[in-house]
């Protein structure tokens, strides 16, 4: 995905615009650029690299101008090169455009434009837009009409922003599926892919719907519907996120900051209105079948949810990875789909949800970003309220979703009559202990986990084992390790080990084992059995275990002791400890923590 931004005001905005794409960098960061209208035509500066690199090379902040658009790119069509970097210009340089998403019919458009003599400088799908603008403007002699004509020629999912030399007091933008919002400030108005684009300058926003376009001037905005060009009434919303929350402050990385914000994220998840949760639980209880849907981290969260529903209600609610959903699922009107996505823009999850919706399924979603595409498709939306998650690697958003799924499982069990309300309240009471216990663990165990991570940062392969609900914990912990440190880690159920993988185990093999609290005797004994199997083959075992354990045996080579806590909360503590282990391994290996190679914050392509 990419980040787009635009600012129009009464003063020079180039510094603000640079800052804006810096705040959007997590959406894509292989190249970036800006186009400003400084009264003497449109000037464009762009290059490959992180925003700060490009600023050093090109001096974006010194461009000058009262209106401009900017882009930070995550390559989909065309390689990472200066030519392919946005903004793109028309032949005469009278239109400049930035774009997020995919224009699916760009080849045909490009060929016909080329035949008419338009010269293309890049390999991108985006570049057809300014050339179409130029062509349409020639015949229609009106920027707005040309813009609408252009929109009607484009197919695909996209959000675009455009400036021209013909109307120096306005920015045009449009949304078709890909996210786009407006920000209304005192001295200037803003366009952005999300709130981070302008949260430093204003907290008043307007969310565009798909198919709408907007004309934004320094002190006003008009939203119209792109088919009929009819004006649309839009309500403004207030963003409650604190500016400071979008900043790193004294933390070395957003990842650590967001790990530390988990207690608050849990408090916020516990604060989600019970009615919202009950509504979904009851819809699920009425359905013949419910699927839990996510991809990447959210799939592991869904898998955690599957165990939760089974533990609490005894019901089987399959979790499916969104990208495989259409290959597997049986969907009809008696189906409910519960989809998880931090951004609400995840391509695979969106297409799975559309597939289910077309077949009449009820859609419930848990998302962190207001006004996201996923929530627009949903019958029921839970806003998890975790605040912006900037690090590409998800920590607090995932933990918050786990809390919401646990609450949902309890409500669902209530609705199906499997537990009573006081049992449900007991589960919630247990969850309420989490924030304080996690905070304490962060303050008392970080140093020890740091030391261990540095000691074992040279290990190239890890096996992460867990049984029962600790199996998704193992999967998610292994994914954290892979994502942030580029170290191979394989999550596996403890019982699965002896069916094949065990052949690999020798003194050179390293395993992390998530040991359940001893009170969970059956699972505990089985897990210890897995450890015995590894130790018998001289493998190395790092155990994540709880205080209450009597550790008079020497099965573990290393251990991370966690504060003892109720069974509902135990998986959370292990996951947080594993997040720290992955984080410190990555810092020992000097990885690019907040923006690991090849990863984007939300994957909006197939």
């Amino acid at each position, binding site marked *: 995905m990419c980040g787009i931004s635009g600012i129009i005001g009464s003063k020079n905005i180039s510094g603000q615009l640079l800052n804006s794409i810096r705040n959007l960098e997590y959406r894509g960061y292989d190249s970036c650029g800006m186009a400003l209208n400084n009264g003497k035509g449109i000037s464009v500066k762009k290059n490959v690299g992180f925003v700060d690199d490009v600023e050093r090379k090109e001096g974006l902040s010194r461009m000058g101008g009262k209106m401009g658009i900017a882009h930070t790119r995550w390559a989909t069509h065309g390689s990472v090169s200066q030519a392919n970097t946005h903004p793109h210009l028309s032949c005469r340089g009278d239109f400049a455009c930035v774009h997020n998403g995919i224009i699916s019919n760009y080849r045909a458009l490009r060929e016909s434009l080329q035949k008419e003599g338009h010269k293309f400088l890049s390999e991108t799908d985006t570049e057809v837009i300014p050339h179409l603008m130029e062509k349409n403007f020639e015949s229609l002699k009106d920027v707005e009409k040309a813009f609408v004509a252009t929109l009607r020629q484009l197919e695909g999912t996209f959000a675009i922003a455009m400036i021209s030399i013909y109307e120096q007091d306005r920015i045009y933008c449009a949304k078709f599926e890909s996210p786009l919002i407006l920000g209304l400030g005192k001295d200037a108005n803003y366009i952005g892919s999300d709130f981070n684009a302008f949260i430093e300058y204003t907290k008043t926003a307007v969310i565009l719907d798909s198919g709408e376009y907007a004309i934004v001037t320094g002190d006003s905005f008009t939203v119209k519907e792109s088919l009929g060009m009819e004006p649309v009434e839009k309500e403004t919303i207030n963003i409650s996120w604190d500016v*400071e929350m979008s*900043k790193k402050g*004294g933390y*070395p*990385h957003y990842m650590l900051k967001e790990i530390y914000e988990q207690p608050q994220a849990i408090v916020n998840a516990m604060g989600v209105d019970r009615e919202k949760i009950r509504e979904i639980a009851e819809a699920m209880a009425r359905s013949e079948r419910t699927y839990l849907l996510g991809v990447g981290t959210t799939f592991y969260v869904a898998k955690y949810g599957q165990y939760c529903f089974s533990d609490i209600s005894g019901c089987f609610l399959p979790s499916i990875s969104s990208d495989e959903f259409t290959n597997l699922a049986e969907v009809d009107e008696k189906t409910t789909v519960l989809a998880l996505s931090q951004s609400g823009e995840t391509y695979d999850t969106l297409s799975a949800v559309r597939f289910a919706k077309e077949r009449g399924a009820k859609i419930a979603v848990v998302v962190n970003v207001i006004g996201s595409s996923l929530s627009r498709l949903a019958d029921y939306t839970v806003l998890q309220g975790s605040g912006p998650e900037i690090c590409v690697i998800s920590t607090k958003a995932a933990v918050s979703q786990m809390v919401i799924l646990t609450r949902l499982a309890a409500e669902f069990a209530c609705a199906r009559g499997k537990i009573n309300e006081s049992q449900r309240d007991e589960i919630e009471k247990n969850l309420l202990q989490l924030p304080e216990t996690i905070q304490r663990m962060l303050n008392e165990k*970080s*140093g020890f986990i740091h*030391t261990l991570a540095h000691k074992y940062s040279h290990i190239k392969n890890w096996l992460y084992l867990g049984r029962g609900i600790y199996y998704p914990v193992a999967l998610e912990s292994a994914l954290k390790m892979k994502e942030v440190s580029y170290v191979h880690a394989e999550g596996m159920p403890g019982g699965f080990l002896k069916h094949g993988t065990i052949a690999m185990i020798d003194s050179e093999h390293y395993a992390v084992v998530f040991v359940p609290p001893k009170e969970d005797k059956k699972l505990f004994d089985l897990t210890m059995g897995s450890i015995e199997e590894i130790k018998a083959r001289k493998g190395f075992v790092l155990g994540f275990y709880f205080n209450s354990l009597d550790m008079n045996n020497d099965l573990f080579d290393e251990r991370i002791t966690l504060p003892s806590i109720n069974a509902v909360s135990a998986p959370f503590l292990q996951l947080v400890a594993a997040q720290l282990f992955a984080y410190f391994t990555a810092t020992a290996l000097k990885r690019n923590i907040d923006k690991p190679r090849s990863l984007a914050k939300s994957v909006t392509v197939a």
Partner: protein
Amino acid sequence: MKALILAAGEGRDVVPFTSTRPKPMIRIAGRYLLEHTIQKLNECGINDVNIVVGHMQNKVIDTFQGGGDFGTNIHYVRQQDARAGIGQAVSEAKDRFIPGEYFMLIYGDVLASQNIFRHTLQAFGVSRSAVASVNLTPSPEMFGNVYLDPRMKITRIIEKPLKEHRGNYVLSGVFILPYSFFSVLEEAGNSMELALSQMAGKNQLNASIWEGGWIDVAYPWDILNANQLLMNEWEKAVIDKTVALKGNVTIEGPVIIEEGVEIRSGTIIQGPAFIGRNSFIGNNVLIRNFTAVGPESTIGYGVELKNCIMFGRSTVGRLSFIGDSVIGTGVDIGSGTMTINRGELGKSVKTRVHEAVIDTGLKKLGAFVGDDVIIGAGNTIIAGTVINAGVSIPHNHSYPM
């Protein structure tokens, strides 16, 4: 912003070197510890530096003087009683600072890779209120441990906690404090711990998490660790144009060789390594990585130096091996001297620090040789030995006997 560096303490555990110099005058990677601090402050635009001196203060003042040679301005504050503690030291510098302004406070024995000061300034830029740098260390029991809340406020400080509280972030010894801190300190009876705890209790102290390398030089072997920390950052070789390489000298990796150095043929230098000005390196010498030969030293024929820090003006006689060791100034090591640099049966080496015998945790460790020591020819020095300043050892012994 002005800075205040505390360099008055005795640092008596860094045997035998602090009996003849204050701790910040120890040389690491070819420079004084204090010099590294001043240089990194300079890099982030802080060039109004106040240094509290006490123990052996003339060594600091004579070397750094007004700071001109180091691109900064230095003012000295003399602490009357160097044993009175750091709170007292900070108080005595009060007149050097301006009411209403913030200043940076630095413990003089702390060393970090990269620029910990810039990082702390960045955190200050966001919070615009008091900041303490914090970091993780394998030995938190030696330092003030902090508890953080998610908004990066320090909520609690526990000095040298018990084992069950281990594993916290510790204070790195770099702070940005308001002028009003002086009155907080005064009310706390000049106890730094109490004053910082009071600020934390009122939610007035922000943390800045330092993820880079960090060492508090508390024991002599910390000099070796600190030296490695800094040299690992080196990326290029800098050889002064006056250096005379007399044929067939092999230089690998990042090295710094200063003016007037002469190196004879057959010598191999494996960087990272440092050779200070006007030193003489004889024929067929092997200088292995993490070695720093201080200025005006003489290394004889066929000597091997490995992970060895020499402060300067010392001589190592022919065919000696000095490994994993720290050598003070003016030391004369006779020919054929061997340091034994590993513990028995693969165990880590122990070292005597005053009355205590401490396990250093290092599998490889040689000797700590004080200033002006004379070692006769043909000696063997046992691993972990401390030789006090001014001691003379006759020829042909195994020391300590």
